[in-house]
């Protein structure tokens, strides 16, 4: 089974958060980007495990500008067979999903894997949108997956528990913690990544559905109020009377 894995880039958690263009764009200057952890650690590695067990190709896809090639090469170094980049500014999730759907429909993948969300915008939107565009079932927040033939048995995280389900035929899955174990690229992986194919495709037009009005940086917390460690009644009083949370 061939698997398409969607990878996105996100600023490292320690990155500075600032905006440009009248506070409508994230300021990427000097920012260190990483591959979204859910894509790298779980979605991609799970796809590789399936390939190792039953064969097939693992293709990674990113919708983004050429600067993203570093992250794409990392995905190839971890073990993906080939890569595709749709050359465009990933404006909104509808746009991103449409580009991925266009590509996926031109091939015959058995499954599409994504991360459960990006850690910068926490959208959790692309997978759901994409599955409808493909008209495939969608299982979100998958924390375990077993393939036997073309039957997938998937465990997904729900509020305070899990749900186990079974699907036959092609499906879209979003990956949560537990689905696989992170893999660090080795030297051989890094060397062969340079020779693997990275195809760049043009984007198709998609009507805009939402617009960024502005980004606002909220005022930081005012100073922490220190409470005498000998006086826990005072802490309880503050939580009750001042903060009103107990």
């Amino acid at each position, binding site marked *: 089974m061939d698997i398409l894995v969607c990878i996105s880039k996100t600023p490292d958690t320690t990155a500075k958060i600032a905006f440009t263009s009248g506070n409508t764009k994230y300021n990427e200057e000097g920012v260190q980007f990483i591959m979204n952890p859910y894509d790298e650690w779980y979605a991609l590695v799970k796809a590789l495990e399936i390939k190792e067990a039953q064969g097939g190709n693992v293709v990674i896809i990113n919708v983004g500008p050429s600067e993203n090639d570093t992250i794409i090469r990392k995905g190839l170094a971890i073990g993906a067979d080939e890569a595709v980049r749709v050359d465009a500014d990933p404006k909104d999730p509808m746009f991103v999903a449409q580009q991925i759907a266009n590509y996926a429909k031109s091939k015959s993948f058995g499954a599409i894997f994504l991360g459960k969300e990006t850690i910068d915008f926490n959208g959790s939107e692309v997978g759901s949108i994409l599955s409808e565009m493909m008209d495939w079932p969608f299982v979100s927040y998958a924390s375990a997956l077993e393939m036997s033939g073309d039957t997938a048995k998937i465990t997904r995280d729900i509020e305070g528990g899990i749900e186990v389900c079974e699907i036959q035929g092609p499906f879209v899955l979003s990956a949560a913690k537990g689905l696989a174990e992170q893999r660090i690229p080795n030297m051989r992986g890094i060397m062969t990544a340079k020779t693997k194919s990275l195809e760049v495709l043009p984007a198709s037009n998609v009507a805009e559905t939402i617009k960024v009005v502005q980004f*606002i940086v909220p005022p930081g917390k005012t100073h922490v109020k220190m409470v005498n460690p000998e006086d826990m009644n005072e802490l309880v009083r503050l939580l009750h009377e001042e903060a009103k949370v107990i």
Partner: protein
Amino acid sequence: MSVLVYAESPMGKFKKAAYEALSYGKKVAEALQTDCFALVLGNADNAADLGLFGAQKVIQIKNAALESFDAAVYAAAISEAVKSIGADTVVLSHSSTGKAIAGRIAVRLGAGLVSGVNSLPTSVQPFSVQKSVFSGKAIAEYSFETSIRVISLLGNAFPPQKTGAPAPVETMEVVLPASKVKVLETKRVEGTVPLPEAEIVVSAGRGMKDPSNWGMIEEMAKILGATTACSRPVADAHWRPHHEHVGQTGLAIRPNLYIAIGISGAIQHLAGVNNSKVIVVINKDPEAPFFKAADYGVVGDLFEIVPKLNEALKQFKASAH
């Protein structure tokens, strides 16, 4: 034109998230000067009670295909209801269910989607909403370019408000696609409130030294009716179950009160918790980074402080609260 709120009823019961979404939808409807309707899929106890939280009418779709969860089928049912009543604003909960169906509904309706909205629209013309991004370090405001919009409301962001009276319940018939997902089993932890829904969370880290010391953490949680959480190394070392792990690679939560005990406050930990309304930090190191994100701080040995705090909390709870 109207607002349609999908009220989730897992195992046939409404939870807080459903009441939050309805109270929110009611306010949005007021701002748009239109009606607020509730939609129920499958069975639910007391559907009429959704009226108490603002629904003028409750629409219920009963269909064998809705007995277990399949995002495609649920999205189809909600989209059909939206079309049949002519709603232009769809409100979902930002839950595991809501996240799985939101995008599918948006595609079916040709609608724009903003997920994880955390406050009322900043304007209705154009319709604009806000959400928290970059681990709480910024707020993003979006406006919709489409005539139909889908939003999902973050948990614990909008308090349920009982204002109305029980509402009439009408059943609606729709034709649904056959499900391609066979649910084999659903397991939920009974008894405790799941972390994403908890209003109070008591969390502990490596400062606890040993898993056998967690008794006092559990005791505090019991006194407060709170749910317990932990830092990543604690879960990785199997001191605590993995589902308690919060942070960038674990759960992101936003309780009203987060009590962090023996946790340093690394940026990856903060990423999952700094949207909490009030943060209390107990740490022996006055330089621990967590104090910068805290509202209340106590510097000292947790093995002395926590028992004292538990005593004080017990007294407080006993004195008529």
